[in-house]
Each structure stands twice: as C-alpha cells, then as structure tokens.
C-alpha cells in the first residue's frame, strides 16, 4: 500500500541513454514535465559507435543507418545531428584522416574518447543552462562508460556524480555504483560477484543506522524480473532452446544480497534495457525503467519519497 505521508522529494530516474542527444535533452526536460526535485541518470550515458564522415570536394559522405549518404558541406551539422540521434558520434575528416581511423586502432580510440569527452562536457553545460536552480541533477557512470568521463562529471559545477559514495539528497542518502558483474562484452567496470559485494558493502556500511538509503546500482538484482535477457553463446548470438531464444536472469547476486541485507527504501537499476519492471525484495522497491534510446524514447521512473525518507509510490514513464 503506498505511503500517504507528505512528499518531500520527487526523483525522476532514467538510465542507459547511450549517447542519445535527444534522450538527454528529454532527461533535462523531465524536471519540469514531471515536477521532479531531483534527476538521476543511472549510468551507460555514452554512445557506442563512431561514424567517420569523409569530406571531399565540398561534400560530406557517411554511412547512416546502413546507407551511404552524401550532403553538401553546409549541411554537415544536420548530418551529424542525424547520426547522433542514433547514439553515435561522428568525426569529419579528409581521405587521410578517415583512412587513419580505419586502420590505426590507437588513433581511432583516441578520436572516440575525444568525442565522448566533448559530448559529456557539452551535456554538463546544457544541464547548467537548462535546469532550474532548485533541481538537483545526479549523473553516475555505468559499465559501458569509460572511466575518463568520471573526472568530467565531477568537475561540472551543475552536476553531482557521487559514484561509489553516499550522497545526501533531501531526506535520503543516495548510494551509487555503476559497477557490474562480468558481461559477454568485457566492458568497463566489471567485477566478480565477491568483489562487487565488497564494494557495495563498504559503501552501505558507512550509512548511519537510521538513514534511509536509495540504491542507485546500475546492475539489477539477480532473478528479480528486472534482469531477464537473451542467453548468448560465445559468439554473442542468442542461444535457442526448443526453437526459441533462451531467456535467463543476468543480474547480480551481489546486488541482490546487498539489497536483502541493507534494505534500502528503493533500488534504482538499469543495464538490461529490455527488462523493464518493478519488484519488491523484502521492503525494498526495486525498479528498472528499461531503455529505448535508439528510438528517441526516454523511459524513466518517477519516485516519490516522504519527509521521513520512506518510499511513497512510483510511476513508470515513457516520454
């Protein structure tokens, strides 16, 4: 039964926008649209792809949605915006630069990192320009985010990025962790279950005994209904059982154990885009709003917290 006390804090939580400019702008707009006091972006904020745009004789050529697209130089910004809409970065260069990106892996990764950094810096500035003064904005990294962005987020005067820390947010303490257990993709910030539990426990042990904690853990708890995904083989292809893709829980047992032991009032999770859901583990309401960033849809959850820090109610949104 929802708590009917007085609301002290409204959180809007979203996750896994993966570099989508449009979704990030929607995220900022959510403060006003959903009357939120705090915005939390729970990890996997950077994009997955880099598209080289070849400049030649006053025109630009790139591969967009699998098709070769050529536009006049003056339409370059529009082309880049369209590429970014897919959650990809783009870089304009002549034949030599494009060839170097294709063949020189180190150079490619340097360009990729540069674009990621530029976008995160731009987002921080956009947040400063657009957010009302009284709205808190928390952005924490996820396993797909390179560690280089942590410093960029922490340096922003308008963004709070309390990764691995307890952070006071009105009546609650926010505990954030973007680390996950191993994935088939060998991404950043992966740890064994034991190591992950140790990291979570160290953070949560530091909370005062009577504190109300909201867990912002990118990894969802194991077998909670928030973590169902297709089972993949070693070639990252779906495993078929009985002619159908095998769906298995892929969440973290460490996260589940931490939630059971420490009982935060709410668990905010992401990571598994296709497993949107809400599930109570003990007294903790665990939420995964899922992600549909590639379609420009920002999935999220509105969470209301009472004056005493207890959970009141939630509502999934798709905007």
């Amino acid at each position, binding site marked *: 039964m929802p708590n009917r006390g007085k609301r002290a804090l409204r959180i809007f939580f979203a996750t896994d926008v993966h570099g989508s400019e449009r979704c990030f702008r929607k995220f900022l707009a959510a403060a006003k649209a959903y*009357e939120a006091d705090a915005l939390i972006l729970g990890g996997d904020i950077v994009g997955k*792809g*880099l598209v080289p745009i070849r400049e030649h004789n006053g025109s630009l050529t790139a*591969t967009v949605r699998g098709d070769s697209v050529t536009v006049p130089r003056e339409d370059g910004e529009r082309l880049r915006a369209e590429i970014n809409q897919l959650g990809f970065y783009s870089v304009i260069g002549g034949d030599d630069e494009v060839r170097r990106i294709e063949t020189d892996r180190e150079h490619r990764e340097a360009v990729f990192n540069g674009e990621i950094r530029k976008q995160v810096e731009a987002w921080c500035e956009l947040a400063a320009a657009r957010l009302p003064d009284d709205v808190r904005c928390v952005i924490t990294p996820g396993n*797909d985010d390179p560690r280089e962005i942590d410093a960029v987020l922490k340096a922003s005067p308008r963004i709070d990025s309390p990764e691995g820390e307890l952070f006071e947010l009105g009546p609650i303490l926010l505990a954030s962790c973007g680390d996950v257990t191993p994935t088939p993709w060998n991404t950043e910030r992966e740890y064994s279950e034991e190591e992950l539990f140790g990291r979570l426990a160290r953070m949560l042990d530091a909370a005062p005994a009577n504190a109300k904690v909201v867990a912002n853990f990118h990894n969802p708890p194991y077998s909670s209904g928030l973590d169902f995904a297709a089972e993949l083989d070693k070639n990252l292809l779906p495993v078929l059982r009985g002619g159908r893709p095998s769906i298995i829980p892929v969440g973290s047992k460490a996260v589940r154990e931490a939630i059971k032991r420490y009982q935060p009032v709410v668990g905010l999770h992401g990571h598994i885009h296709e497993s949107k859901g809400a599930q109570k583990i003990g007294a903790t309401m665990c939420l995964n709003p899922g992600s*549909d960033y590639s*379609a420009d849809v920002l999935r999220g959850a509105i969470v209301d917290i009472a004056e005493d820090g207890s959970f009141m109610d939630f509502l999934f949104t798709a905007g």
Partner: protein
Amino acid sequence: MASTTSASGGGKAAGGQSLFTRQSSGLVRELGIPAATGIALASVAVVNTFINFYSGLFNFTRVDMVLPLLLGAGIWLVAMFAYRYLLRAIPRAGGEYIYMSRIISPAIGTMIGIATAVGFSYTLSANANFAAAYVPFALNSLGAAFNSSALTSAASSISSTTSCVAVTCSPGLVICAVGMLVIVGLASVFSLRRIAQVILALVIFQVVAFVVLGFLLATHSHQDFVNALGSYSGKASAYSDVIALAQKNGVPLGVDVGASLLVVPFMVLNYNGVLYSYYVGGELKRPGSTYLWASAISLALLIVVWVGVWLLMLNTIGRDFMQAQAQVGGTSDYASITGLQANAGGLGYGLVLSGDPISKILIGLAVPAAEIAVDLAFVAVVTRVIFALAFDRMLPMGLAKVSERNASPVNAIILAVLVGIGFTILGSVLNIANISANLALFFALVLLAGSIAATALPFRRPELIYKPGTTDVDRIAGIPTAAVWGAISTVLALFTVGVIIAKPNVFGAFSVASVGSLIVIFFSGPIIYVIARRMRLSSSSIDMRLAMRELPPE
C-alpha cells in the same frame, strides 16, 4: 577503455568508411520490415477483397472496381504519410490512444483507446465468425480435392441450424469460431516476432492461393469458364441463365463512373489495416522508416494483386455475369440455376475452373488462413492498446505484465481473446447485428482521430518533430508538412464517414442499439480515465496524468 571494432553489416560505405563500435551491452526492438509488412498485410486479409467486391456489386449496380481500388489506395497513401509523423514523434505501441492522449488530451486519448480495444475485440469475434462461415466452403473444396463425400457431408452438417435464444444459429459454426479464437489466443502467447513469422507464412499462403487463382483465370478463356460453370451446375446454359435472370429482374448492367465512386468507401475499408504496423510501434526497429516501408510495400502489393485479379476476372468471367450474380445470387431462381455460392466471388470462380486437387485445397483454405492471420494480427494490435492503457494505469497494471520468456503481454492477450469469445457466443444466441452494424463507421472514426492528431501535432507539440539542430518543423509553403498530410487525411476520412452515414442501407442501418453502443464504447473511455485518476490520487502522490506527458527534447 573498451576496444573498438568495425561494425558488421555496416552497409554500403562510400570510400570504405563505416561504423566503428565500442564493446558495449544491450539490445532492443526486434521487428524489421518483413515482419511489419506481415502484420500490415494480415490486418487487411488479402482474400477478403472478394467479399468486398461482392458487397460492392451487391449494394450498387453498374460498378467497376478499378477506380475505387485506386482511389481507396490513394486515401490510405495520404494517411500513411500523416501517421508517419505521429510515429516519428511518438514511436511507441498504442496507436491512436497514444497519439490523442499525448497530443490532444488524456481524456480524449482514453476515449479512443478504450473504444479501440472494445471495437477490435469485437473484430476478433467477427473475423472468427467469418472464418467459420467459410468452413463449409473449405470442406466442400477439400471434398472435391480428395473426392471425399465424408467431407462434403461434414460441410452440410456443420452448417446445420437450430433455434437458439433469440435467433437461428449454427452450433457447429459457433464451435468452429470459438475454437479458432482459442487457437489464436494460444498462438499469440509466443513472441511477437514469432507471431509475425506465422502471420507472414499465412499471408504467403493467401498470396499463393491468389497466384493460383490468377493462373487459373489467365490460362482459361471466357468460354472455358462458361463451359466449366455449366458442368459445375449440371446445366450447360447456367452462365447465360444467370445474366438473363438479372435482366428479367430489371438489374442494370454495365459501368457507370458515378456508381463506381460510391464504392470508394468500401474499398477504403477494404484496405483498413494496411497501416497497422504503427500499433506495434514500440517493437519496430527504426520505427519511422520501418513503418513507412512496410505500409508502402503492403499498399503496392495489394494494388497489384487486387487490380490484377479484378482485371483477370473481367476478362475470364465477364463483368455482366459478376454484376448479375451479385444481384440475384440470393434468390431461389438463382439457386435453381447453379449451386455456386455467390458471395465466394473469385474463390468460387477458381473452384469452378480448377481441375487439380492442389488448387482446390489452396482456394478452399485461403479464407480460413486469411482470417487466422487477421485475428493474430488483431490480437497483436488490441493487446498493445490494452498494454498501453494499463502502462498508463488506465486499466489494471496486471494487464501491462509482459512475459519474461516471450516478451508478450499475456494477461492482455487472455483478456482480448476472452472478450472475443464472449462476443462470438453472444452473437450466436442474441441478435447483435444492429450493434455491430456500425463497425465500418467505427473504423472510419478511428482513422479520423489519427488524422486529427497528425494535423494538431505540429501546433500542439512541435518540439517532438523539430528538424535536427533547429527549432522549426518541416514546412510546405509555410504550413507544417505534418499538418498538411494530417489535414488531407482528415478531409478524406471525413468523406468516408460522410458516405457511411449517408448510405445506411449499405454500411449498416442506424438503430437505437447501434448508436447507443457506439456512444457507450466511445464515452466509456473518459469516464474510466476520470475514475482511474481519482482512485489513484486518493491513494498516491503521483498523478497518472504525468505518465501521459511527452517530454520535449528542446
């Protein structure tokens, strides 16, 4: 930093450059153009055109179908572009409910949503009844194919009637209809991708039946058909007798353009469903382009197949005969000339012409296959509307529950199929013909709602369709392009609504029961919205209205 790789399937990269990806996780959206095309084509039911051909010929005299088929397709082409903007702005499941609630108002959106859910559930039942009505035809075809008297006698016994509560009903056919709905319900529990594959297979089956029919029509001369009908009817002069009967009854034959134009609304409804891939917008890969391609391919295919088969029928069967048969096909005089079922139209002609068992089987099973495909597609459509309503807390949250295994809304499927079965049983014991008479009007009103939403989109929510990097929308002569397409679509939808209202003898007579049902269906939405919102506000701090806010990206 995770390593980077060149993405496979990067496409036709000019100059060699492509897409480079970082190693990262996640996958979403699975329906591509073939699956979306399957849903669109199945929602139409390719072979149902014979029923609409028959209805046009039955309700109007001196009509030809080429012009109405082309004009009907033109109307849907306009609507296709209007809906493209809606799907681009709001690429999610739910169709008109989502568009109206986000663009116009939550209460009006709910009105359309509830009405759509109820109306489409009734359509499930109507399609199942329709398929059941064709079971005797299918059994007769199979009986002819296998030379089995057991099958033909089964066709006779299955359609035997008895007195039910208020009407004469056929228990055998009701059992067939309910059985079909149960099968459709069970099949719908699989993932949408798998269902789309089944639908596509059934659509291919229909197309093969169509091709066989086209082959039969193309490879037989007019005289062959005259002779074959004589042989089928046991009366050599059957062909000329049917035409003579019509002339004796004063039926005018030939072509009149004005009369043909009156059939346009029929053909608009004939194509109804061709855009329905937008209902599963939440599951489409690259929703805007997938929807557009699926709809355009479906429209083009239907035009080619339908116009083509009509032209072949003109050549082999003859327009005068088809017009005469439709007009006198229900009389006892006609029955004394031939046993050829008049409303089977082209399929009946194919049965008369076919000499081999394979084509008889294909023709016999085409309609049941089509209706199963239609119902599978409609279950997918109606359950996504129910899902969207439940997701917004307008219906119980349990209806938004999605199976982890198949990613399908199981509870919504169960509800839709149970309501469909309820309508089927109700229809067998009570006369609900009056209530369902205005189904055509209902579909036209839903199209009108979507068109209005597209017209309003650039004015009420321009930020959803801003050109990338700008704060303006695409324009034609200063008018937002989405509004232009929406307005044209609105005018054409209004024309369709107008003709349907003006021709109650054709599209269903209005009665207190039918109009009352339409009002109850449409106005239950806002009432449910108000009740659900008040109930939630009494126990929660979060107004459900927030869930219906579309976030502006700029």
